[in-house]
């Protein structure tokens, strides 16, 4: 019954999306207030229905209802409940339902909470949101029905990929999807504003919180995904330039650029067409990513199913929406005025350079990701991986970081180059000092990119707090603090990346229980190895005592786990976090003579990578709250003033 109810809810939601689109289109075309008045309630109802459909699917997974094909092929009754729950989206159909749910709920939120946007643009935005939702409903209902039954029902399910059986699955995909699909709101805003020709500062102020919200979640999702890959895959890597990672990075790059350009539009009423374009590009990148992942055109741990029909369907949707939005842009861009002019030496120019560099990185990641597909069409199989992206996008990212030092120290409208130089003096001196120390200490031992990375990270760290210099910290607005924290987060993250690639010490040994291994100042005593059992796995667990410089020994337990359904072996690395780095120990295979393969890494300051990611998101949240609170305060004061007059 639950499955049928879920399917019905989905069909109803799809019909409401169609109604929402029709009401908005007819209402706007004929300027009929009674039609437009119904758009918001319909949008809310549609969001509710998708949420219900999603909750019903979660219930099916929690109850292990094996008569539902999706549950049978992706779950198992013996799984811990957390993985039954999170397994809902650990497969193709479930993750697409999550996608549609986020889109519906985001639309409902725009209907309920958006107050700043002009009425007509608001309605056009909701119409746009319904239009994109419709395509994904069609995809779900015709090509990936999550509620299909299977006859006869199997005795038990086939289980979930053990790599995904980790608490990370409960957090990483939903956060990432909230961000990914949250960008659809920015896309719909752009469509709405193009239709009503109302692209101005007020529009930017209305769009900014939605972009910020999506961007914060995207940042958290990527950070969490990176840490998950780092500890789960057992090789100490945290970013692989895997096509699927690129698919999540591209919307983030576009959203980051959008976040900065929308600020220019809101503050100075400039960059109108560019901002609208970026809003279209950001969600287009989310859709391109979904196509790359879901079509199975790229094989990866994320591509749950390889099915050309689905790929074609998403490709058609992609062409329809991106093509349609670009056509609308081309048609209406003439009506969007250029906006206020600006000087060469100004905050605006700095933000334009930021946008330019982010767009170039985005373009390179896109080209690098798609290039192997292109050459394969010509019968030439190539790989484009870390060496290309590091070498090509790395230096541009470092340039971007340099702009990040100067940008916040530059004034809006017009500034003097000499004054900026004076303000950037301290960060510059810090950079020079670091160069001197590093050159003295580690010349020739570390690569040029990590070297520059450390130098620039420290310069940015100092530069990012420089805008607070000589300011009354208590009266500094929360959104300024947000910017400072987010930029500091970039520096922290860059520092972690550079430190990891420059100073990591690797040790591979085959050791017997009772033996001792020394590496990077650590002493590991391999005590014993023994079998242990979990809910749905058995494992071999090594007990080790580790200590550094004669300190108190700590026990760690790396495992090699075996899952029966589906039969897979995973490694559970033991991580020991210290303020200055992480010890990463993996238990490998048995070697001859009762020895065991051990992989040991000491990674100085590696945790800064994810701490930085978290700081970036935190900064975004502070900016969001700061801006919104200011809006509420202003409204509250004007209401008070009116009451006082009356």
């Amino acid at each position: 019954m639950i499955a049928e109810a879920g399917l019905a809810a989905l069909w109803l939601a799809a019909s409401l999306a169609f109604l929402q689109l029709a009401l908005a289109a007819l209402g706007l075309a004929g300027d009929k207030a009674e039609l437009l008045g119904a758009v918001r309630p319909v949008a809310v109802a549609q969001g509710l229905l998708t949420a219900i459909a999603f909750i019903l699917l979660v219930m099916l997974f929690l109850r292990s209802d094996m008569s539902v094909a999706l549950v049978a092929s992706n779950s198992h009754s013996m799984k811990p409940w957390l993985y039954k729950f999170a397994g809902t989206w650990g497969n193709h159909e479930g993750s697409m339902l999550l996608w549609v749910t986020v889109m519906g709920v985001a639309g409902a939120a725009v209907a309920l909470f958006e107050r700043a946007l002009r009425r007509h643009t608001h309605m056009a935005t909701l119409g746009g949101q319904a239009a994109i939702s419709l395509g994904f409903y069609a995809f779900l209902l015709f090509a990936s029905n999550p509620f299909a039954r299977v006859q006869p029902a199997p005795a038990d399910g086939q289980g979930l990929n053990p790599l995904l059986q980790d608490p990370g699955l409960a957090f990483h995909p939903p956060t990432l999807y909230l961000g990914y699909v949250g960008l659809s709101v920015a896309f719909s805003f752009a469509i709405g504003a193009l239709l009503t020709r109302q692209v101005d500062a007020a529009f930017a102020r209305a769009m900014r919180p939605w972009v910020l919200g999506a961007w914060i979640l995207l940042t958290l999702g990527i950070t969490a995904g990176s840490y998950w890959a780092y500890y789960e895959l057992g090789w100490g890597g945290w970013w692989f330039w895997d096509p699927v990672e690129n698919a999540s990075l591209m919307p983030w790059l576009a959203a980051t650029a959008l976040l900065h350009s929308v600020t220019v539009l809101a503050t100075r009423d400039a960059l109108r067409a560019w901002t609208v374009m970026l809003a279209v590009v950001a969600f287009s990148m989310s859709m391109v990513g979904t196509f790359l992942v879901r079509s199975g055109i790229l094989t990866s741990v994320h591509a749950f199913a390889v099915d050309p029909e689905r790929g074609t369907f998403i490709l058609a949707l992609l062409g329809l929406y991106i093509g349609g939005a670009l056509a609308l842009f081309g048609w209406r861009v003439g009506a969007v005025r250029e906006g206020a002019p600006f000087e060469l030496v100004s905050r605006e120019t700095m933000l334009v350079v930021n946008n330019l560099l982010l767009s170039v990185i985005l373009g390179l990641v896109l080209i690098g990701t798609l290039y192997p597909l292109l050459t394969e069409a010509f019968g030439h199989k190539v790989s484009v991986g870390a060496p290309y992206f590091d070498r090509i996008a790395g230096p541009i990212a470092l340039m971007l970081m340099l702009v990040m030092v100067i940008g916040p120290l530059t004034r809006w409208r017009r500034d003097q180059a000499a004054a900026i130089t004076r303000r950037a003096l301290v960060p510059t001196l810090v950079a020079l000092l670091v160069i001197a120390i590093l050159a003295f200490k580690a010349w020739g031992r570390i690569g040029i990119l990590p070297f520059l990375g450390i130098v620039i990270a420290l310069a940015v760290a100092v530069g990012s707090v420089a805008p607070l210099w000589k300011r009354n910290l208590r009266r500094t607005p929360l959104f300024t603090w947000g910017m400072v924290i987010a930029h500091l987060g970039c520096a922290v993250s860059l520092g972690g990346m550079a430190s990891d690639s420059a100073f990591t010490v690797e040790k591979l040994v085959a050791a017997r229980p009772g033996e001792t291994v020394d590496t990077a100042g650590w002493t590991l005593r391999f005590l014993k190895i023994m079998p242990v059992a979990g809910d749905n796995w058995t494992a071999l667990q090594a007990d080790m005592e580790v200590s550094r410089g004669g300190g108190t020994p700590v026990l760690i337990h790396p495992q090699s786990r075996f899952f029966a359904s589906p039969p897979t072996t995973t490694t559970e690395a033991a991580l020991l976090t210290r303020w200055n780095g992480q010890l990463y120990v993996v238990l490998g295979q048995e070697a001859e003579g009762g020895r065991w393969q051990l992989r040991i890494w000491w990674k100085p300051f590696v945790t800064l990578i994810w701490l930085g990611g978290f700081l970036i998101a935190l900064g975004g949240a502070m900016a969001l709250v700061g801006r919104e609170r200011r809006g509420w305060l202003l409204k509250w004061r004007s209401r008070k003033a009116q009451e006082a007059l009356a």
Partner: protein
Amino acid sequence: MRLLIATLMLLLSAPVFGQSALPPAPYADRQIEDAAQERKARALMETIRCLTCQSQSIADSNASMAGDMRSQIRERIMAGEQPEHIRAWLIERYGDWVSYEPTAAPILWPLWAAPILLLALGGWLLRGRIKRRMER
């Protein structure tokens, strides 16, 4: 004829053979004594694709083929071969697909030109815009 049958038998037994007596890969998970050589080998391994995995380099893969390739690379580095020479050898053997670092084949020229073209395009857009603004 007998030789053919024998060869066929050997081919058929290959999977079993692979499991019982693993081909010698002494340096799959064993580092080279000389740290500088090990760094070289490690850097190369990070840019070589594991052919039996899903987008992983041989430096971070549990697959036995990746282990064999790691061992090959370490042995060749110890024998004094240059990393780029080993890469060329691997490409000759397995095709361009094996190297995460795109080669300089003509089909890849646009890929290498992309950053310059994109930066130039951006710079041109920016210059045009600011110049016009200055004239006002």
